């Protein structure tokens, strides 16, 4: 059973269409409305329920996407901090703002094929895993 892809974006329209796009490909989603809510929710999950990928928006109330990533990786280095993350942003953040080596970046406006390709890296298509189909 594949683990869901977590979408964190305070903009309801963007969050819902990102989930919608994934669900059309039979990819399970876990939508959360901002970084603060997400930290609280994710920290209560048991590791077997962790998402396979977190896609987080840069601009959010209370806590920016970058701050969310830093907190997740600093506070849970051995558990949640190991989950792959993609940052959604309208511009490429400065190198000194964050070490981007371990981060995928999706530039707005996101292209569906880039988004689905990224999702498929972490959420294999059932067609690929069950050759009999």
């Amino acid at each position, binding site marked *: 059973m594949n683990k869901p892809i977590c979408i964190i974006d*305070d*903009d309801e*329209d*963007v969050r*819902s*269409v*990102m989930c*919608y*796009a994934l669900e*059309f490909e039979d990819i399970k989603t876990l939508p959360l409305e901002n970084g603060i809510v997400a930290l609280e929710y994710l920290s209560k999950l048991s590791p077997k329920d962790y998402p396979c990928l977190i896609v987080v928006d*840069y*601009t*959010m*109330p*209370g*806590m*920016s996407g*970058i701050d969310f990533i830093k907190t997740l990786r600093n506070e849970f280095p051995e558990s949640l901090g190991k989950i792959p993350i993609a940052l*959604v942003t*309208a*511009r490429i953040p400065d190198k000194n703002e964050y070490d981007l080596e371990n981060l995928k970046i999706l530039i*707005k*406006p*996101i*292209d*569906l*094929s880039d*988004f689905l390709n990224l999702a498929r890296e972490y959420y294999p298509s059932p067609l690929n895993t069950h050759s009999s189909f």
Partner: protein
Amino acid sequence: MNFIKQSALPKEGLSIESLMELLFYREEFLTIASHELKTPLTALKLHAQVFKRNSIKNTVTHYEKKQVDALVEQMESQANRMGKLVDAMIDISRIRSNQMHYLKEPFNLSETVNSVLKHQFIEHPLQQFSVKLKENILFIGDKKRIEQVFSNVLDNAVKYGKKLPIEVKLTQRKETIFFSVTDLGYGISEKDKKRIFNYFQRAIPASEVSGIGLGLFIAQEIVQAHGGEILVKSDIAKGSTFKVVLKKGNAP
């Protein structure tokens, strides 16, 4: 907690420091504007591409009518959102070049507030509003522009109000009309109170609350052209009251 009066545009004869500051904010504005446009653009583009992908895969026939309705509705709302941003940018350019033109027509201000509120109720179904309106207040001025003022002030209350109830009042004392909006959100520091009416300025960093930083600047420009003013009263972490004061017979 005192009401403070806000001054309008920066005056002529700017120092090098303030010119540099303006340049900095212009840069910041371009960054924010592109971000703000790219968010609805992202939603719109993804919607269109999902639809296209499913059309090619021939699964589009599996859409139920209500799915198609929801999809089209959302695409329209993204386009409207972008339209609003572009309008704000055009307004700024008009204000800067003194090209704002105002109509002078009598209208029912109470009805205008009602119609703006109706939009807010639809756009923010979960937001609580407590409303006290004096009926049938008549005013002479530019109805669409005054509508824009009320809408900008309410948008801010929703945006910075932390989803707590918002109080809206429309009252009249003699020839003076008061439209006030009170939220219980972030609040504004003394220092920021002077800043937020300037263009490209916001009290909360763009990385935390999205917005273009033009709403209050445009609102103040319109209100001043109508011979009125916008007052702000706020305590940090307790909330803010924005009061639009209009005088009858002071039309542009």
